[in-house]
């Protein structure tokens, strides 16, 4: 087994107990009354997700500890986005808590007033003293903040990172790139079309590539939106980032990069047909799984290379929130608090293998011993400078805006002018946001 990872190791699974383990009582602090809202019955609407699956298994323990009964309705993400707004608008009190991805939901939900601001609960005696919001990475808390108010509790961290094939870099004496210039040079040096190896690969499908483009435009100093929430896609920095994305993939990407979705990019890297790859941190599972990966021992992880404006990854997280229309908000907060305590985060880590949002759990051996050391180092280096909810512009019509930006990405991948593509995208997004 030495030197090889099983998928479970890669994912950070500590086998014993795992999903079945009910978490230990979340708070030992004297004086906090977990049973204060005993007898309440709550309705949570959540999407299919490893964390919601884990949480569902904790509900009997939650009822025992708090006396609160939770009806945990799990539906697919698309259906949640359709059904939840209908219920929140038409039937106040029907939903007490829900699962939210702010990079996608926050603009619409905030404008509709569906999030209950949480700060007043966190600061009150409704919160156990050892729940400790200071334990969360500060930047991950920001993913669940609207106008400075906490509206949800992030449960994991998802960043983007640079993956590289150690053997390929060593064979050509290429250093792990730390800057975008070095990345471009390395990608060109490693590119070997004759040998069927691309120097660098990331997403080429317009709608999907908005996510992977983000760090490249951030590294040039660009932002999706200005301070007033208006698109800023024609700025010189954005054009530079977009141009770079097109150039590196045209120079050293696979020949069929145009239209490539993540489900076709990661297999290239995984099967030894690409030397470097950028995408979300959780792709490590695909590369460390010996049953499907040819590069289990060769995969290296490094922080995203820095551009003129530094290195800025994207940071997103799902998490539970309280419905502003709920008639049992205090009890709902008690339930959310129970499911996001430190003990809960440890239990969830063992069951879901996802990087925890609490620093104490992230830094514990429970996590650091279970995943590759370079992944821990890379994400630690990135998290402070990552852009919360940077995966796409946080606007109401996210999918439509992503499609408009995606058209610009495809244009540069086809060799068209970056400035013109960016300006067209800017006009299109302004038009979409106007409604």
């Amino acid at each position: 087994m030495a030197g090889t990872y099983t998928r479970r190791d890669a994912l950070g699974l500590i086998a014993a107990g795992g999903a079945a383990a009910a978490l230990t009582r979340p708070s030992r602090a004297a004086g906090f009354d977990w049973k204060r809202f005993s007898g309440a019955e709550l309705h949570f609407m959540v999407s299919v997700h490893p964390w919601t699956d884990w949480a569902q298994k904790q509900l009997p323990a939650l009822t025992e500890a708090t006396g609160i009964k939770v009806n945990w309705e799990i539906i697919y993400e698309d259906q949640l986005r359709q059904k939840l707004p209908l219920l929140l608008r038409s039937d106040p009190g029907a939903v007490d808590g829900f699962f939210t991805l702010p990079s996608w939901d926050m603009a619409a939900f905030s404008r509709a007033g569906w999030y209950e601001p949480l700060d007043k609960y966190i600061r009150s005696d409704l919160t156990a003293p050892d729940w400790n919001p200071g334990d969360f990475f500060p930047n991950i808390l920001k993913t669940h903040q609207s106008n400075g108010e906490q509206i949800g509790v992030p449960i994991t961290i998802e960043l983007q990172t640079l993956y590289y094939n150690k053997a390929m870099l060593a064979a050509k004496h290429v250093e792990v790139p730390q800057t975008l210039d070095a990345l471009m040079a390395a990608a060109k040096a490693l590119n070997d079309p004759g040998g069927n190896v691309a120097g660098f690969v990331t997403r080429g499908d317009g709608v999907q590539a908005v996510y992977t483009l983000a760090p490249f435009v951030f590294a040039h100093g660009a932002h999706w939106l200005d301070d007033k929430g208006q698109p800023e896609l024609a700025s010189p920095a954005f054009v530079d980032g977009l141009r770079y994305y097109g150039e590196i993939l045209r120079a050293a990407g696979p020949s069929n990069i145009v239209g490539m979705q993540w489900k076709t990019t990661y297999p290239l890297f995984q099967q030894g047909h690409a030397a470097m790859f950028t995408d979300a941190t959780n792709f490590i599972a695909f590369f460390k799984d010996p049953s499907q990966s040819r590069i289990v021992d060769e995969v290296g992880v490094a922080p995203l290379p820095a551009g003129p404006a530094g290195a800025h990854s994207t940071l997103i997280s799902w998490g539970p929130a309280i419905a502003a229309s709920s008639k049992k908000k205090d009890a709902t907060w008690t339930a959310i608090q129970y499911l996001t305590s430190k003990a809960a985060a440890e239990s969830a880590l063992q069951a879901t293998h996802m990087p925890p949002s609490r620093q104490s759990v992230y830094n514990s051996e429970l996590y650091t011993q279970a995943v590759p050391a370079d992944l821990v180092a890379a994400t630690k280096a990135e998290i402070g400078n990552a852009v919360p909810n940077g995966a796409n512009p946080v606007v109401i019509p996210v999918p439509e805006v992503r499609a408009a930006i995606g058209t610009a990405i495809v244009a540069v991948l086809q060799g068209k002018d970056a400035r013109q593509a960016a300006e067209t995208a800017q006009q299109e997004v302004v038009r979409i946001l106007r409604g």
Partner: protein
Amino acid sequence: MVALATRRADAAAVPRRRKWRRDWTPDLLLAPALIAVAAVMGFPLVYLVYMSLHKWALIGYAAPEFVGVANFTALLDDDRFTGSLWRTLYFTALGLVTNLPAGLGIALLLNREFFGRSVLRALLIFPMVATPVAMGLVWVVMLDPSLGIVRYLFGLVGIANPPLWLSDTDWVVPTLVAVDGWMWTPMVALICSAGLASLPTEPFEAAIVDGASAWQRFRYLTLPLLMPILLVAAMLRLMDLLKVIDIVYVMTGGGPAHASETINLYNYLVALSYGKIGYGAAVALVLFALVLAATLGLVRLRSAS
């Protein structure tokens, strides 16, 4: 004469009430079916029209607002809509002109006796029964230049650099038509096969006696006799091609840069992904009208033939 007179007398003897009842009985018997059709087809259609006249956001912070035909006039200025409309017609035309001759050819081949015919016929079913989504994903991998087998096979016959099937905006629709055809041409073949088996043998025997060549027999006997069956196959393919969404969604998501976005996919994106239910209803009605018009055209062609 006697019988006629008796019948007249009987008719006169029937009381008014019974006559009334006899007239309405068939309608009453049909009523359950009519009500069911109205409920499951009529109501959604009427509601679709109602929605298409509103600005209606799925993400519900604003109430639906009546806008008249504004959604339909907006369609005319929507490049993605007009693009997807023409693309769908191109997709459909390309599908029909390739699937029908290929299906008929396979059927003619299967119509002859040869070793392994029944095995071949069974194999034909496979692409049809496979899940389109799974098949789409398999084709994505097969067409990938680095990972797939297609490029290798082209290399064997001396074509080192075949087109970048799904990444080339000019090739993406023909490639999707080919994958769709791989799945559904066997259906055309089976329909034609059944049609061929039901043709009378006498005209063919007479034609052979008269010295008609194989081509003449096909051109002047098989094809005209098979035409009603071919039109049924064409109608089924036409409806499927106009509505195509599954393989496009899975294989390209409409990309690159909307180059493979069909009207049904655009409809899905607008209504359920972008949450513009009213506008999406307008797109759906255009698609509905398109399918209806094309189908009625073929039905007329069939009755004429």
